[in-house]
């Protein structure tokens, strides 16, 4: 049986331990902390996570290996369908030697029998060291954090927050542009129900971004979020006309108009397909303008764009792994 207290094992552990501490120790502020909203982060903490994410890239690619979270267990609780977020959390955990438990079919669980989320969380909390939660109702992650002893990471709660998506979006932007400061960013698509854009806009205000919000009137950014941005000194421009603003953009962040968020299918049909990014519209853009999308896309971005230098959305999806690795390391401490 492996004796984890033995000097030989400790030596082995220290040999595989990667340096997860930022030079000024900022990242460790997140040790044992919940990640519920991007508003919980300071600018320094975000930069620290992005720095650590950069160090994680060779590990995420499998070019280097480590098992710094060996012995830890991540509980993946997805109450809504997910491909990228769920898989990238699993990949991030496995790349660090962390085990993953999950429920693949919610209809087979006691949740379908009417168990409250609070009870489910208390139960899962006893089985793992960190909980990753996606849930259809807003505020679910905050509630889970209240009932869980272990840290909770919000992987999307309804139309609310999706902070880890925001972190990987920021990482992708910084990777593409070298810096986040003062970028001209155009957000286009469903800005009302799209949770990624709410969290992203919030975070970008910390970096002095100039935001342009492009959406049909019925899908514009909710007033309370715009007011919050304005209170933080960002004064976004609202428009429905993408053609008029694309030439100024450093980043074009496209979101899908989500059928599942519309209570009324007729309302969805009115706005579906309003914006479509193709090579024709990109002729107006700067040559180094970057197109991002949280994916999945339906028809917002034509496949012909994939092969242009503008396309960053698949790289963006990959970046979910190093960013979530950085987050898991910061939260779990990396040492047993």
């Amino acid at each position, binding site marked *: 049986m492996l004796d984890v207290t033995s000097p030989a094992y400790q030596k082995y552990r220290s040999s595989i331990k990667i340096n997860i501490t930022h030079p000024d120790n900022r990242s460790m502020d997140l040790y044992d902390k919940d990640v519920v909203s991007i508003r919980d982060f300071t600018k320094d903490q975000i930069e620290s996570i992005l720095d650590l994410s950069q160090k994680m890239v060779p590990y995420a690619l499998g070019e280097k290996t480590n098992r710094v979270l060996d012995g830890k267990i991540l509980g993946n609780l997805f109450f809504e369908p997910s491909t990228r977020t769920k898989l990238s959390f699993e990949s991030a955990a496995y790349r660090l030697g962390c085990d993953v438990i999950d429920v693949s079919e919610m209809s087979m669980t006691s949740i379908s029998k009417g168990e*409250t989320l*609070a009870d489910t969380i208390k139960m899962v909390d006893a089985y793992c060291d960190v909980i990753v939660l996606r849930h259809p*109702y807003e*505020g679910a992650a*905050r*509630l889970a954090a209240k009932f869980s002893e272990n840290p909770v990471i919000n992987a999307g*709660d309804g*139309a609310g927050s999706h902070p880890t998506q925001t972190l990987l979006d920021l990482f992708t932007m910084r990777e593409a542009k070298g810096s986040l400061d003062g970028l001209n960013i155009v957000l286009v698509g469903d800005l009302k129900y799209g949770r990624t854009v709410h969290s992203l806009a919030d975070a970008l205000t910390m970096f002095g971004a100039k935001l342009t919000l492009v959406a049909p009137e019925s899908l514009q950014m909710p007033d309370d979020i715009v007011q919050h941005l304005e209170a933080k000194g960002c004064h976004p421009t609202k428009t429905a006309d993408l053609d008029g603003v694309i030439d100024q953009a450093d980043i074009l962040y496209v979101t899908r108009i989500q059928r599942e968020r519309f209570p009324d299918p007729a309302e969805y049909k009115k706005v579906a397909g309003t914006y479509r990014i193709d090579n024709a519209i990109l002729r107006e853009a700067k040559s180094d303008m970057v197109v991002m999308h949280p994916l999945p896309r339906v028809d917002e971005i034509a496949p012909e764009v994939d092969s242009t230098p503008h396309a960053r959305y698949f790289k963006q999806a990959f970046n979910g792994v190093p960013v979530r690795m950085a987050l898991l390391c910061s939260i779990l401490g990396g040492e047993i």
Partner: protein
Amino acid sequence: MTGNANIKEIMLPPIRNGTVIDHITCGQALNVMRILNVNENNIDSSISIGIHVSSEEMEWKDIVKIEDRELDAKTVDKIALIAPDATISIIRDFYVAEKYKVRLEDHVVGLAKCSNPNCITNRGEPVSPEFNVIGRHPPQLRCCYCDRMLTNISDNLL
């Protein structure tokens, strides 16, 4: 109390015992009545309501006087959510036995439900709705769970 204020007071009949809720934000008197949960079927004492009453301090205000009732702390806290400048006078044998201003705390718990139907606090979970007060004139509350602003406070009081 100034002489002018005395003149305003006598616009509503005095009460022997009970509570005077004064300096209610103009237009909120009927919502205060909802908080007091009184109607013709469940009270035997008299209630006087002054709506759009001239006020030196507020220009216009509402007043509610309720006989034979003193308010508990939770009721007063709810009134603060819709009328943050309201004053409560407890009347005993025609004299003001106690007078204080309602206090809107920075953080309120269990007084109102979230107006966002998709908020987890509206889904039968064992938690009380919680809000941070981010504005006071008029009161503006942000849900601590879903982060949305509470719209139409009076319709969402518990």
